[in-house]
Structure formats: C-alpha cells, structure tokens
C-alpha cells in the first residue's frame, strides 16, 4: 500500500536557505514548505541541519527536479535510491516530480525538457511513475510542464496524457497554473479550456510562480517559466477559477530566481491563503 500524498490544504512556500533565519526565528503563517530534493542529497552540513529544523515545525513537500521521469531510457536507479533515502529520513507529506526529462546519455541538462505525447512515451512514463512509487512506497504527484515548442509526432493532448498516467499508476497530479498560463500563451491555446478538461479531482497540490515575457521567431509573445517575479494577474485569475471549483488545495508559491526578502514571499503566500480561505467559507456557507 502506497502512502498517499497528504499536504495540508493551505498556502506554502518554496524554502530558500537565505530565508532560514527569518523563518526559524518565529512561527510563520505558512502551511508547508517545499524543497528541491537534489539540494539535500549531500552527506551532511547546513542543508540537513536547516531541513531538520524546518521539518520539526512544518509540513514538508519534497519536489524532485532531477529524476528525468520523461526519459525514454531507464530511470537512474542510484538517483532513485537517493530520493528514497531522503524521503525515508524526512518523511515528507508529499513527493512530486515533473512530466519532463533532464538527463540523456549520462549528461544532466539542469532543465525540464519536453517530450512528445504518444502511446510510446505514455507507456514509458507509466512504467517510470510505477517504479518511483514502488521504490518510495509513496504516491507521487506528477507536474504538468511549461513548454516552448511542440512535437509534430504528438498524438495525445497533454491533459489526456497526464490523466492516463494518473489512471494507470494511481499517482496524483501537481497542477502548476503558471505552467498552464505559459504553455497556453506559447501555443496560442485557451488556458481555461485546458483547466476545464483537467482532472481536478486528481490534483493534490497547486504551484503558482512568476514568468518572464519574450518574443518568438515571428515576434509573437513567448513566456518563459522563470520563477523570478511576482505571480501575474492572469495566473491569479486562473487560480481563483480552479479553487472555486475544487475547494482548498495545498498551494505553493515558487520563487527560485531573484529571490525577494521573506516578507515579500510571505505576502504572496498570504494572497493564496486568502483565495483558499474564501473558498472554504463559501463551501461552508
């Protein structure tokens, strides 16, 4: 039996070591913290000391960025074993990874790279998610990607692809609403249509983050998933749309570049918490 993902249905924040002393100085109005798994795979030192202190006080989400689940080659067993050690040690409420690949032929690219959605890639992703859940003994959450291009060989819409992985493996889904917004803009599609077809009943966590604006080959807007700025108004609107339908779901503020001071980050989390609290009041009324 797999341990189900069970983050509290509150606003949480991506933990950054630069905020450690602020966060640990006094109790924070934050439901959970999320850390990138790969930052805590060293043998010892301050990272583990901080994570131990954080874990004693808050619910914890471990978010992997380097497993390369979208790889067509076998998963990196040594890396999976490291993830298991980390999860066994800190017993997080949730473990999540991406529908993307980041390694190929032993090279680690440090980016979440896209894959075509076909019956072949679907079968491989299902295999990999099964393997992760079996090794960890936990349900994992799979996150929808932000993408900048498409593959002509794709035959399955992304939402169907994610839904089928969840149906076959029992994994939960991590709905990154910024990624929905970024991808919809980049592919000239409707974010609301994406969300309305998304299996929201499988969503166990939501991510909100900032993006940057650039232009593509023909001068059309191209959004980049940078996590380096406040959440945009468009993303907040989509978030409210989702929460009105689902009720409260654990929601993470992701801010990984140009990291602001702790009060700024906490204020973003407070805005998400307001949306969640309003939804709870409405459903209780």
């Amino acid at each position, binding site marked *: 039996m797999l341990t189900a993902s069970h983050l509290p249905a509150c606003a949480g924040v991506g933990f950054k070591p630069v905020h450690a002393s602020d966060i640990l100085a006094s109790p924070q109005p934050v439901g959970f913290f999320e850390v990138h798994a*790969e*930052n805590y*795979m*060293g*043998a*010892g*030192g*301050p*990272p*583990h*000391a901080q994570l131990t202190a954080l874990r004693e006080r808050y619910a914890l989400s471990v978010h992997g*960025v*380097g*497993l*390369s689940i979208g*790889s*067509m*080659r076998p998963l*990196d067993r040594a*890396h999976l074993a490291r993830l298991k050690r980390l999860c066994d040690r800190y017993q997080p409420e949730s473990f999540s990874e991406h529908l993307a*690949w*980041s*390694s*190929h*032929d*032993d*090279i*680690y*690219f*440090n*980016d979440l*790279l896209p*894959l*075509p959605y076909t019956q*072949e890639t679907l079968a491989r992703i299902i295999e990999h998610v099964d393997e992760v859940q079996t090794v960890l003994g936990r349900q994992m959450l799979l996150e929808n990607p932000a993408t*900048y*291009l*498409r*593959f*002509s*060989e794709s035959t399955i819409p992304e939402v169907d692809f994610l839904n089928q992985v969840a149906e076959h493996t029992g994994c939960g889904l991590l709905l990154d609403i910024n990624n929905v917004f970024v991808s919809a803009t*980049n*592919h*000239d599609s409707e974010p609301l249509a994406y969300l309305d077809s998304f299996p929201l009943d499988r969503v166990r966590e939501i991510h909100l983050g900032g993006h940057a604006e*650039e*232009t*593509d*080959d*023909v001068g*059309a807007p*191209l959004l*980049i998933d940078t996590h380096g700025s406040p959440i945009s108004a468009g993303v907040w609107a989509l978030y409210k749309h989702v929460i009105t339908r689902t009720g409260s779901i654990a929601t993470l503020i992701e801010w990984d570049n140009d990291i602001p001071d702790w009060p700024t980050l906490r204020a973003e989390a407070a805005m998400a918490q307001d949306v969640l609290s309003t939804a709870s009041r409405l459903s209780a009324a």
Partner: protein
Amino acid sequence: MPASFQTSFADALLDADRPIPHGVTAHNAASPARRFAVYRNNVVSSLVKALGRRFPVVEQLVGAEFFAAMARVFVTEQPPRSPLLATYGDGFPAFVATFAPARDLPYLADVARLEAARTRAYHAADAAPVGADRFAKLDYEVAGDLRIAMHPSAEIVRSPFPIVTIWAMNSGEQQLAPLENWRGEDALVARPLLDVQVRTLPPGGAAFLLALATGRSIGEATEAALADDPDFDLTCNLAGLIGSGLARDIIIPEPKGRRQP
C-alpha cells in the same frame, strides 16, 4: 522510433551549431529556432550560474563577463554527469589551469581549487570533533604512535601563490589591500561544525596533515613535515589540529605487550 527525439534534442542542446531537432514545431513556425534557443539558453546559463555560485571569488577576480565566457566553454566541454549540482565543477579548477585566456592570472586555478574544497566541506558528512580534553588525557609516551582519524570535511590545498589571502580579500572576509608578501600559502579547509573554515597552515603543516590523513602516525607525520619544511613546529601544529576541530577520532595503538609475536 524509440528515444530518437531525445538523442537529437540532447545533441542540439549543447551544440549551437547543430540545426534544431527534426519534429520540433510551433503553432506559428515550422522550425522555431528561437523557441529551441530557450532550452539551449536555460541549460547553458543555469549551469554557468551554478558554477558562479560555487566559484564566486574566481568570478570576482576575472569579472562576470570573462567568467561567463570561461564557464560556457567548460559547460559545453564537461557538462554535469549527475543531477547533484552542488558538486558540479570538481573539474573546473583543472580546466581553469589550462584555459589560455586566463594565463595572466596563474593563481586563478588554485583559488578555484580552494573554492571547490569549500563546497565539498559544506556538504561533507557531519562528525563531532574530538575535544581538547581527550588530547589532554593522553599518555605522552605513546603520543608519537597515535593516529588521527581526520574530520570528513577537512581538505588541504597547497599553492605557490597566496591563495588564502587572495580568497579572503575577495570574499569579504578580509579588507582589500595591496599584497605585500607575495608567497605561497597552504590552505586548510574544514567544517568541524556548521561553518566552513579556511586557514593558512604554518610551515610543514600541510605535509603533516596530509600524512595524518593517509593513516600515518603522529611520529611519522612529524618526520614528513620536517622533511617538507625544517621550520615545522609540532606543538603549534598539534594545537592547531585540536583547536580547528580537525580530529574526528584518536586511534591509540595497542600496548606492545599484548601484540602477537
């Protein structure tokens, strides 16, 4: 065609001269080069940034632009082989040593070695250092036969350049000032508790600690240290070893009488 998209995609990521992979498309362009460039840029610039985080003093010494250009060459020649980016760049100091445009700064590679050692110390296994009281209780007659299990975070970086001073002045640990005494410095990098310490070792200190680290006794290490530098001072070096929390354990030899003939 199994996995073929990944191979062509991966090959084109680190080689900007390759055409963008077949089958990659966009709603408004059949061959979206700028869109593919987002991935190329994410990969290279995030790895350059990772190197900048690990080698901030090298970056400070050469300037951001030079550093980025140098790091980009390293990233494409030696991309990471593991998702653990904290240790990416162990090969960077050796690369810097052979990077022709940096030839005018002969100390740069050794400063990079010092910074690489600092990150390894930061992430090294935790171990409680042996306290001064345990040393005080030791029997002086066997002192020469003692062996020291070194702290897992400890590393020595020897250099013919004043790398500790250069590092300290460019990392904010010490005020920038003209270097009056341009001579070699051996650095000790260790993290006995949570803070990474960088110190300059006294004469012979590096040879002494390196001998201890390979399992030699204090007596043998003293010989090695004196051979390295006749100014080696055992008392001062032992005090430094204890005071810096470098010993994880003291291995006391069994009394001779109990040994098998």
